[in-house]
């Protein structure tokens, strides 16, 4: 086992997939000699050359367009969008072309591609470098949406995403790139299937659903309230689409209470989907109203540090919500 950071897990995954399958290539802004703005692809240009680690123009529409075209041609592109905030110019390509390709061609054409997207705030990034975008894409049939929270899952899920025949939106909690460390085995291949969630902490009093960076705050909050006698079960959803309904329902059947946490703003957010699943399928298991704790419905992550703290969830805010729900 080796301890590594989240971004090292991602880099290893890409390295191994480039090595394994010559159809795999990376395309994105500054992914080549520069190694990407976050250094996720550092060293890969030198190792695999300019044909397989391709610097793109400053045009997201074009990065995704290249991805779709080469995927149809039989390649396995990994497209990097520098910040989630910049993905909107490519929204049309992703939603109308990539997501619907298989369906509209009756299965004759598929667009197997990974769209790697660093997302989320708390890094002083302000309006243009902090957004959470999962709700937009989790809504679209034909896409898979994956959010790892640990180096192990980051590596294992990215490798699975590369091998998946569908377009996969691969969301990377960028605040955790170097903050989050974890064990990853060296001597075996790490593959984490897309779909299953993971119970990262077993408990009986309530279930806390989280993903990405929020999963770490959730774990921290759960440990904190454990000292007060509140036994929280934490579920790392890992895949938002298709979501692991079985794990979601089984956990709430056990605890009777659900708290869903995400950094993205509340209204129309991904938490609503989990809440709706519980309302529809777990009603007779509920011992309290399903609760969501999410970012505020304001247009952007503030640049001012105190206001950024106000916007971002943290272990304190999550612990408060846990206490309130546990006392219900």
């Amino acid at each position, binding site marked *: 086992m080796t301890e590594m950071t989240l971004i090292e897990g991602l880099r290893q995954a890409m390295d191994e997939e480039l090595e394994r399958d010559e159809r795999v290539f990376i395309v994105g802004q500054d992914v080549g000699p520069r190694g990407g703005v976050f250094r996720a692809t550092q060293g890969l240009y030198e190792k695999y050359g300019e044909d397989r680690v391709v610097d793109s123009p400053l045009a997201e529409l074009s990065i995704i367009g290249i991805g779709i075209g080469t995927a149809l041609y039989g390649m396995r592109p990994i497209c990097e969008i520098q910040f989630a905030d910049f993905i909107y110019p490519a929204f049309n390509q992703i939603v109308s072309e990539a997501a619907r390709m298989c369906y509209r061609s009756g299965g004759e054409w598929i667009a197997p591609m990974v769209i790697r997207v660093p997302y989320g705030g708390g890094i002083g990034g302000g309006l243009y470098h902090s957004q959470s975008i999962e709700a937009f894409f989790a809504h679209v049939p034909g896409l898979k949406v994956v959010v790892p929270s640990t180096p192990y899952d980051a590596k294992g899920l990215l490798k699975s995403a590369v091998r998946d025949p569908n377009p996969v939106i691969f969301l990377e909690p960028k605040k955790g790139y170097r903050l989050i460390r974890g064990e990853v085995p060296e001597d075996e291949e790490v593959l984490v299937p897309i779909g299953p969630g993971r119970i990262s902490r077993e408990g009986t009093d309530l279930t806390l659903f989280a993903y990405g960076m929020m999963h770490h705050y959730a774990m921290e909050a759960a440990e904190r309230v454990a000292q007060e006698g509140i036994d929280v079960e934490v579920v790392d959803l890992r895949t938002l689409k298709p979501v692991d309904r079985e794990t979601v329902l089984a956990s709430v059947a056990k605890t009777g209470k659900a708290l869903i946490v995400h950094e993205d703003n509340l209204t129309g957010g991904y938490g609503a989907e989990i809440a709706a699943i519980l309302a529809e399928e777990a009603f007779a298991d509920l*011992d309290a109203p399903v*609760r*969501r704790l999410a970012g505020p419905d304001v247009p952007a992550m503030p640049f001012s540090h105190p206001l950024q703290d106000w916007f971002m969830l943290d272990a304190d805010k999550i612990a408060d919500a846990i206490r309130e729900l546990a006392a219900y």
Partner: protein
Amino acid sequence: MTTEVIMPQLGESVVEGTVTKWLRNQDDRIEEFEPLVEINTDKVDTEVPSPATGTVLKLFVAEGETVVAGTLLAVIGEPGEEVPEPPLAPSDGGVRDAPPAGRPDGELQSAPAPASFEAAAKVKVGDLGFISPVVARIAAEHNVDLTQVSGTGSGGRITKKDVLSYVEGGQAAPPWEEPGSGDLFRPTEEIFGAKEPARAAAGTLQPLDAVRTRIAEHMVRSKRTSAHVTTLMEADLGRVIAHRKTHKESFEREGAKLTLTAYFIAAAVEALKEVPLVNSSWSEEGIVLHKAANVGVAVSLGEAGLIVPVIKNAEQLSLLAIAKTVNDLGERARGHKLIPDEVQGGTFTITNHGISGSLLATPIINQPQCAILGVGLLQKRAVVIEGMSPSGEPQDSLAIRPMVYLTLTFDHRIIDGAIGDQFLGILVQRLQSWA
């Protein structure tokens, strides 16, 4: 300024009621204290007065709908005033002023505001507090009487853990035990059976109102609970009738209409004093002897069912006081103006089925009492009077006497036939020797 009309809690254990009739329509004017709506609970029918003078801006509950205490029924105000939204959850009963409209804009809150979350926790369903879906399910699956479970949740709410630890403690009620009354989540199969309701091929379905449902539930439960036995005697009411004739006017001057019912109550109370075992209730720990003789008198409301107001502490009342109380309760019963506490707490019941022509009947015991007295039709009948001639020879004669059949239906768990007969005999004796 609008005023909300809230479904009141009409008695300690009365948690829901049916709106039977709106006495004002939307947009009608109404004065404060004027009757606004007729409410029917499982115990009584009553009128709810308007809490304010104004216009009925909106009625929130349709006639025939059953709602829990605390539900918003209507809003009174001035025409053009904004009608507040009905709250999702009923709060405490009673009338209250409309809350201030919305909270000021400004701060944008993440997640559900804590205020609304707390409000949800305070939802009351009767005395149990809010029952969550999972608690209701577990209680139904394990036949748990939730009134026996102590709640540790917010506001004393019964949590999933509470009901689970109750079930695991092996304290769940056996399946035949009476389900908690007033429990909204009680499975209806327990009351009505799980079978399809029997319906005649070409018949129409008459919906059940609260009174009918309550009576049905109570009667079946009583039959299932007590070992009913009926004993029959007859009484010559000649002396009672004579007494009534003599005292009718003086009673009237005192403001009381002297009815035969008052005599039956007075005689029953004396018999209860002499045979206290009849004034009792069965419990698994033992027979509970009641100190007070609280005598219920069944009052027919025609098609609307029947109601049994209770004369409390009848053993302390004179014939005059009994007569006055009977007049008052009877009148208010027929006017749907009884309060629920006036129909609770009875220890013995009298039903005067003779009013409708019945000679003799075997009524069902009013739980949890020991016995019920059935009074048949007062009828002049030919009776053999045993006598003696002046010379000492037996000389029987035939006489026309005002006779009545009296039945005592009693719970054989508590008393045996001899005690029942002793009680009824004393009662008959008291009536026949009235002076």
